């Protein structure tokens, strides 16, 4: 009961002056409060405006690339120019292999037809000067060279088209697009220009006549990459490749990560080994992504002999890279489940495994999902490791399995930003970035949605 205060208490007057002293400093203190608060707000506004600037500059550059100069021609499939036998049909008694050979050689012949002359003739309908025999290359130069593929595919599909006049929309070549959009200085002397004088004149004329129009650049989404005609270069292959890698990351990193998190959080005894694993995981989360590239090249390609440039390898490398993120997020989600739930289950006689799978895990799933989606989104945007496993390749096809060669969105962006045709590809690159950001934001928004949707505990 005795208190420990043995000394006599010094007098402690409740002075009025003290109150005044405090009051006298209040103004200054409140001012510094306001200062500090506005600094904080300022920091956030800086952050947000940086987001704005970044998006603004990309949108500013990228949006125009979603519209592309396109020629709307009335194209006559002149049989004289195409000059090809009728499509072979399988004769009775002809073996399948023979027929196949015959068909192949027909197709080959078809591809060798003078498609440029066909296009020249179509352009000449509007600009007669382009019809001159020596103007064939000049006229064809207005059109993206790969657009001729479109024409022979039409014939291949329906040989009856030969002789008819059909309206076709052909993407203009990149230089025409650049010229018409004013992305090149029109006043530069001719020797600095990409288009010849005739081409400049013709494209202006065609544009005036409405033959060339600015159409939505659907080729961006429906075509694969192209080098020979940049104007038709698209992202389809890259998108499919990226989606495949994302799926692989989801299938590999998410379950493994979740299981590792479960073990570390719920089962692991606290000892040196688990400490080691823990430090390891935290460290892996910070290991430079490029180092994962070195790992992928050495392990998956050289050691396991998996194919180069394949989404499978990319996906595995990205999975390893994402794994720590998933583990860390999942552990946090598990930790957030109140221990009372676990105890309740154990108290009834559930084994730790049952308590885990019946109670803790279901409650942690939303948090894990959020972590997983964010991890996957990160993986989707990663470039550096892919450069080292051969994914910075020119791939002009859509992969149909994860073992096929493929590109990926960020890598495609990297390749395009290095394309020598700056005038065209600067905005094309930004457009590709917009697509990537679109996917990214959708994923993140989905994660946020999940968080809000499932955080409501009942």
């Amino acid at each position, binding site marked *: 009961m005795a208190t420990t205060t043995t000394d006599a208490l010094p007098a402690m007057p409740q002075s009025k002056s003290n109150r005044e002293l405090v009051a006298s400093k209040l103004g200054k203190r409140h001012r510094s409060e306001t200062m*500090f608060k506005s600094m904080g707000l300022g920091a956030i506004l800086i*952050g947000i405006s940086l987001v704005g600037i970044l998006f603004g500059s990309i949108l500013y550059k990228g949006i125009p690339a979603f519209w592309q100069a396109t020629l709307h021609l009335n194209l006559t499939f002149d049989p004289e120019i195409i000059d090809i036998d009728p499509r072979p049909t399988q004769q009775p008694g002809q073996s399948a292999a023979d027929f196949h050979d015959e068909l192949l050689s027909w197709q080959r012949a078809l591809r060798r037809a003078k498609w440029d002359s066909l296009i020249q003739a179509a352009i000449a309908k509007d600009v007669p000067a382009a019809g001159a025999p020596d103007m064939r290359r000049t006229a064809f130069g207005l059109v993206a060279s790969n657009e001729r593929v479109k024409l022979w595919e039409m014939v291949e599909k329906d040989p009856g088209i030969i002789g008819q006049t059909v309206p076709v929309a052909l993407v203009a070549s990149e230089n025409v697009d650049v010229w018409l959009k004013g992305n090149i200085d029109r006043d530069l002397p001719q020797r600095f220009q990409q288009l010849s004088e005739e081409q400049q004149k013709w494209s202006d004329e065609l544009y005036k006549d409405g033959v060339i129009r600015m159409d939505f650049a659907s080729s961006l989404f429906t075509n694969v990459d192209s080098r020979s005609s940049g104007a038709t270069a698209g992202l389809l292959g890259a998108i499919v490749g990226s989606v495949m890698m994302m799926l692989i990351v989801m299938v590999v990193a998410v379950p493994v990560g979740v299981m590792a998190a479960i073990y570390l959080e719920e089962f692991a005894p606290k000892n040196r080994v688990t400490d080691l694993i823990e430090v390891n995981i935290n460290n892996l989360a910070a290991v430079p992504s490029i180092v994962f590239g070195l790992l992928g090249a050495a392990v998956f390609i050289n050691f396991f002999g998996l194919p180069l440039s394949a989404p499978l390898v990319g996906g595995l490398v990205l999975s390893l890279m994402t*794994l720590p993120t998933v583990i860390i997020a999942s552990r946090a989600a598990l930790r957030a489940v109140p221990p009372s739930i676990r105890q309740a289950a154990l108290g009834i006689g559930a084994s730790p495994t049952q308590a885990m799978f019946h109670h803790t895990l279901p409650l942690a799933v939303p948090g894990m999902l959020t972590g997983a989606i964010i991890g996957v989104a990160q993986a989707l945007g990663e470039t550096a490791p892919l450069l*080292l496993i051969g994914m910075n390749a020119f791939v002009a096809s859509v992969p149909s399995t994860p073992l096929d060669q493929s590109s990926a969105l960020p890598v495609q962006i990297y390749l395009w930003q290095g394309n020598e045709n700056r005038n065209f590809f600067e905005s094309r690159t*930004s457009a590709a970035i917009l697509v990537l950001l679109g996917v990214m934001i959708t994923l993140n928004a989905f994660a946020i949605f999940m968080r809000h949707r499932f955080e409501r505990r009942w």
Partner: protein
Amino acid sequence: MISLAIILIVLSFVYTWGASASRRIAAKTGQRLHSRPPYYGLYLVLWCAIPAVIVFIAYTLLFPQFQAAIIDSYLPQAVLNDPAELSSQTRQIENILNGVSVIGTPEPYQLEAVRTLRSFEWIGRLALLALAAVAAFAGTLVARRRISPHFRARNRIETAIEMVLIVCSGIAILTTVGIVLSVLGEAVRFFTYVSPVDFFFGTTWNPRFSTTGSSGQGEFGLLPLLWGTMMITIIAMCVAVPVGLLAAVYLSEYAGPKFRFFAKPLLEILAGIPTIVYGIFAAFTVGPFLSEFGSMVGLSINATSAFTAGIVMGIMIIPFVSSLSDDIISQVPQAMRDGSYGLGATQSETIRKVILPAALPGIVGAFLLAVSRAIGETMIVVLAAGNSPVLTANPFDAVSTVTVTIVNQLTGDTDFASPQSLVAFALGLTLFVITLCLNVVAIYIVRKYREQYE
């Protein structure tokens, strides 16, 4: 596809057998089962699948040796005695086997070997199938015998599940081991060309093209690269730390729930943007802007410089710093705040004098993690730092970093067996060790701090 279906059917059959057998035994003996029937079913499934898998793994491990033995048996003694010839002939035979042509006409004995191997290929496969089936069957039988009311099937299953979980967490370690192994060998090879002293303490990075001039390898001094990395990191942290920390403070202490609801995801967008996008933003927007701005105020700022890369990297790291700091600030117990408010402190006084000091160790740990992210960042630097590996104190000059050099040396035109490209692995290893150290320190600090309130 079909084989998968067969396996599934077999396993489900085994499962049903186990479950029903346990029920039957329980009914017969009248005792309560230790575990519920499904666990017995799963137990049988495990015993069916694991032996088969073991057989399969053993086969895949042993078959190449078996194949080698067959090849050896066909090769003449002269070849067997010459290791170089032996390995080349072995490879030739394998090439023929795989349908890849060889130079020159193959020896008849080689063709003979190939023919034998071909036949063994499917015999081997049959044998594998049979062995696996036997193993699975035996395993199932053994397991079936064990079923009794006292048998603790659930515990076995749970042990198995735990094993799987352990393996999954082991993958993290495997990854680390893989990283070290995959760079170590080449790094060691690099050090046979260049002495570690020259590498770690050299102040000039000038690897030269691998063959120009017969004299010398060029110089592989790491310091300019490290210095570039450091400079960019410092600049990045100068951007990210104040902005990130203040933003975290505002979000966790001042902002109302609505503001938080919108501002936080908006900031987090910065973290979700791919680095390639930052790189392009830095190279084509920020860089030219800065250099223009510099010439306006009379500073010569390179468009691609440590400054440009650093600033953009700082922007990228802002949300990283802010969300980590946010976590740590909100870990400071409410009691600290109450104590301070109760004494009449204003909010900013509480934050500056109580909360931040209390959270400081944790925040420092968070910064170290952010630093290691900055050090490892590649694409921004590839595009915006200017790749000039010189020791310079001027942040407006171009610099180069370790990560960029890895990419450049590995994707350059140099001889791939030369130190010029092997150096990438040495650099990778160095980078790994640096981030490892940083992380260990950071984790140590963060943990220590966590214990503080407990």
